[in-house]
């Protein structure tokens, strides 16, 4: 019997020693689980991820450059085109920054209303995330449940702000207009309703064996990495990084409400999932404390038609549904800023994706992406 000449005859395949080869695959830009246009270049060995390289910028609109030509009132309208799911909070970041520059104290009524709408906004964002997360992992029902409850919040927004998604309710100095007479009643009704419905979310996904198998121990991010990558929001807090801006640097009415900062230490997909579910309970707690105690008063402090910030630099951070949003304005005492930088939470959270997904299977990448809760316009700006 002759031994096959493996070394020189390349047509012979040695079954006992299968050789593997790395290969590349493009995920996106049009992939359902990226929820937008994000291209991931995956380096694979079989179905194991060796490397995930995000290619972004498909919807870069150069908002920062546009801001250099706009007045401060106009900039507010650009920000809710970044993270459109927490548009009210984005608007508030710019308004707070401008108000700090003008050394203006807004009325108590404005602070309380802003906080309530912030939390409603956070709830609606998390509801959408929960629905979409289930759908990414193959459960269509959650999508319908999430949107059913979110509809009630968008109705409240429609009545008070006049828009359902990009609300533009904040202006420097206060609010665009006062709350609708029905606002308090409808919000209270919604909280009563949603307190009954949120346990359903747990029944459907949190205790679902298929779901937990796909999320527990997947996409691990350590606390050190979370801090080093600047991963904030529920994603960072699920890794044990206490980064809640509402606690660390309270703004609006967050200094007078009682709520818990949700912290998990597991750092996997399930911890990130749980952090957001728990945050919905805390949001409801905040709204309940404030909704009956809206002080009387003006809804807007008078500002000049042309706002000029004194020369200097201003930085303001707020907690959006995705993490820490920073607005950095450099002013040279003109009617438009010299430079504006938005420190967007999604951009920093995305940079940690490679660390999280490396070593997992390609199907786990979808779960990891879902729990990052990326909004692509927020990353690309």
């Amino acid at each position, binding site marked *: 019997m002759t031994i096959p000449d493996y070394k020189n005859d390349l047509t012979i395949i040695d079954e006992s020693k299968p050789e593997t080869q790395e290969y590349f695959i493009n995920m996106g830009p049009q992939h359902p689980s990226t929820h937008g246009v994000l291209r991931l270049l995956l380096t694979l060995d079989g179905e194991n991820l060796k490397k995930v390289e995000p290619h972004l910028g498909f919807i870069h609109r150069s908002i920062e450059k546009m801001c250099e030509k706009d007045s401060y009132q106009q900039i507010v309208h650009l920000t809710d085109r970044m993270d459109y799911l927490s548009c009210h909070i984005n608007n508030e970041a710019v308004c707070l920054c401008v108000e700090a520059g003008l050394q203006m104290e807004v009325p108590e009524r404005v602070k309380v209303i802003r906080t309530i709408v912030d939390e409603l906004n956070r709830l609606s964002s998390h509801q959408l995330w929960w629905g979409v997360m289930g759908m990414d992992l193959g459960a269509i029902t959650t999508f319908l449940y999430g949107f059913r409850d979110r509809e009630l919040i968008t109705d409240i927004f429609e009545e008070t702000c006049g828009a359902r998604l990009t609300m533009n309710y904040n202006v420097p100095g206060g609010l665009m207009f006062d709350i609708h007479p029905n606002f308090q009643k409808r919000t209270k009704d919604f909280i009563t309703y949603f307190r009954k419905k949120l346990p359903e979310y747990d029944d459907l996904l949190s205790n679902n064996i298929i779901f937990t198998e796909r999320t527990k121990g997947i996409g691990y991010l350590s606390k050190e990495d979370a801090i080093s990558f600047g991963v904030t929001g529920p994603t960072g807090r699920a890794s044990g990084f206490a980064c809640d801006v509402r606690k660390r640097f309270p703004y609006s009415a967050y200094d007078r409400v009682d709520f818990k900062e949700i912290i998990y230490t597991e750092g996997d997909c399930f911890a990130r999932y749980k952090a957001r579910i728990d945050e919905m309970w805390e949001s409801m707690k905040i709204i309940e404390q404030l909704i009956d105690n809206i002080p009387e008063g003006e809804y807007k402090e008078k500002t000049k038609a042309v706002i000029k910030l004194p020369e200097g630099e201003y930085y303001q951070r707020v907690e959006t549904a995705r993490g820490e949003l920073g607005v950095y304005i450099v002013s040279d005492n003109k009617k438009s800023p010299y430079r504006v930088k938005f420190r967007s939470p999604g951009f*920093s959270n*995305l940079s940690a994706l490679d660390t999280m997904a490396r070593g997992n299977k390609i199907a786990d990448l979808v779960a990891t992406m879902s729990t990052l809760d990326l909004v692509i316009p927020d990353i690309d700006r």
Partner: protein
Amino acid sequence: MNLMTNEKLKELIISKIPDAEFPEGEMQFLNVIIKPDDLHPLSILLRNNPETNFDYLFCMTALDYPTHFFTVYHMTSSQSTFSFVVKVKIEDKETPAVDTVSDIWKTAEFLEREVFDLFGIKFNNHPDLRRILLEDDWVGFPLRKDYTDEANIVEL
């Protein structure tokens, strides 16, 4: 826990970098202006010193002035709420360059790519310095003040 104060930090920096400038006037955070060569050693010091422990770089960007560039680093500690700003003054407008800090804060890898993309500032020793938001064959650096684009920027 706010052990750090502006005065203590000033002393610490001056002991290492005698020619560091501290701009006067009312500022939200303490600012320091340093030369490009001092950035990397200072970052290691601020990151590893147990008193400062600035392990969280929360914002990084650049500013374009007629005579110079600034790269701006906003940093804080995960343990405290004390925030601090380091500005690196780059006087070379033709070929601006500064050392990378992506080996100290991992978030800087993406943020520096963004600054490179939009300002054209090079980061020495960066592991993967490419354009991040714009296409690879884009001409010019849009966030510079002298950038012109007749097709897309409408002057009013």
